[in-house]
């Protein structure tokens, strides 16, 4: 029987093994912090070592596997682009949260994100703006007045 390699397991295994090894090496540099050899650096060594061992097990299982699994997560280019756009929106939202303020940034984010994930024929600008403003104000009121937590006021403050 021809052996087939499970590429997904192989990839995961290599990644975990490398991460485990890198962390293990950096754990070796930690001061023990205790008179005995079981101080602050003990657990990091154990856990990163375990991670590396699990990585090795994944690699082993990739070669023992009987079915062929293609490597990668098998996402289309389009899907990856969509993911990156959402990620970028979140990045902008968080980055300007303190500088511009919670209310403005949240309204902006809800409108942008919702517009992006709504099917084009379903997009209703007026309804969306109302939803964004109302839900932002509700969240703000609940957190600031109800639960007495602080939110960044930004340029409105």
């Amino acid at each position, binding site marked *: 029987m021809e052996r087939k390699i499970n590429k997904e397991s192989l990839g*995961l295994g290599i990644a975990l093994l490398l991460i485990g090894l890198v962390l293990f090496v950096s754990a070796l540099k930690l001061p023990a912090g205790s008179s005995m050899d079981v101080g602050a*650096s003990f*657990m990091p060594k154990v856990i990163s070592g375990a991670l590396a061992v699990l990585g090795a097990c994944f690699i082993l299982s990739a070669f023992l596997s009987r079915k062929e699994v293609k490597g990668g997560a098998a996402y289309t280019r389009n899907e990856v682009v969509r993911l990156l756009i959402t990620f970028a929106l979140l990045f902008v939202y968080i980055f300007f949260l303190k500088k511009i303020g919670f209310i403005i940034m949240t309204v902006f984010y*809800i409108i942008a*994100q919702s517009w992006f994930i709504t099917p084009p024929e379903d997009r209703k600008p007026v309804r969306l703006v109302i939803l964004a403003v109302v839900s932002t104000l509700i969240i703000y009121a609940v957190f600031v007045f109800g*639960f007495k*937590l602080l939110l960044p006021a930004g340029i409105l403050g």
Partner: protein
Amino acid sequence: MILEGLLAILTPLTLVLMLAGTVIGIAFGSVPGLTSTMAVALCLPMTYKMSTEMGIAFLVSLYIGGISGGLISAILINIPGTPSSVATCFDGAPMAKNGQAGKALGVGICASVFGTVLSIAAMIFIAPMLAKWSLAFGPYEYFAVTVFALTMISSLIADSVLKGLSAAIIGLMFSLVGISPTGGVVRFAFGIRELQLGFNTLPVLIGLFAVGEILSYSMIKPEKKDLKIIDFDIKGFGFTMEEARGQLVNLIRSSLIGIGIGILPGIGGGTSNVISYSIAKNQSKYPEKFGTGIVDGIVASEAANNASVGGALIPLLTLGIPGDAVTAILLGGLIMKGVNPGPLLFVNNGRLIYAIYFACIISTLMMFVIEFLGLRMFVRILKVPKHYLLPVVMALCVVGTFAINNRVFDVWSCLIFGVVGFLFKTFRFPESPFILGFMLGGVLEQNLIRSIQYSDGSVVLAYTKQPIAMVFLLVALAVVVWKPIMNAKNKKTA
């Protein structure tokens, strides 16, 4: 103490919060894609300024509502609202199709209540005994129980033990970031000042359970879909007393399965409903009718998933080890309030324990009333499109993580754990072992190091002299070894 606990819950504000919690929980439970885990994680920051009893009562009501809410969408649109209601679809959806939606809902709600009540009774009965027994636990036992919990969840929840264990180890890895409990050394901070105190629990939870979900939803190209919600008509409870009597054995059996699975660390309603359904089918005199729309199926699934609530709370309260993902968040909530769950809680803080018992009982009552009276409202929530809901949920994630410390850093780490959650979903790694590893990392380390220090030389030898610890460690080992062997056997016969 009993009275004190009851009084702590019976304040108007707490009751209003619990009512809100139950409604929010049911809403999150009923909308597919939003889960009870998410609801509890998102509402955790709101409890920041509340008293311990009030905060926990609020979270418990979210939990109980959330687990039950899944049945609404399972029956009316044939999509489980949460993983806990997967098996409810099997008979609930056919019943709805046959024009018996009202009856299916009534049966589901009543079975939910029955399961919850029985599990709360079990909790009140079992928890103090377990607590008394575990009072004698030292570092050996705690280390062994923690390892047991982590391996159980890793091997039972994932299709691959390797993936489950890796998830747990990665969670443990993240828990190491920051100042070490022994020696006070800053670890894995990589020169980032904010990391010196380690990752805050909340961004980790919200990132993993909410942001990850939103990231993966946003990838799918939006298409116009019409949601078909079956109309229903419900009179009274929707079923007769005679029918209820016929289900008594099924109710009790399913609840016991739910409680048992709930007690096991790491797995809860998401597992128990499916197992209970298949056992009910095997034990039935008419297994061929299962799946065609009979009440037995709904009863088995809904009694079991709700019974896991009380079950999952038992190890949380007595050992500080969460029984499932939601109780892991409750653990975070308790720690945030400076309460360390464990056997000592029963000795020192009986008031809180009774408050939790009463919170469970009262929110079960609320769930019962709200689900019957508010069914039409929840159906309307089901109709709200996801593209409106998810951005608002995301905004809530950002607010919640920011508000705990007023640091944007926490929001960034929430996003990072969102990416971790997304990667986990992509490669089918289970999230619960990660959370358990992250939450229990400190306990694991402290007890391991203490047990090494106690042992005075050979640790392995010291452990062999501790019978309770040995049993837990051996079972943990057996579970890890047993699952791959069974998988290999199944593959050969298949």
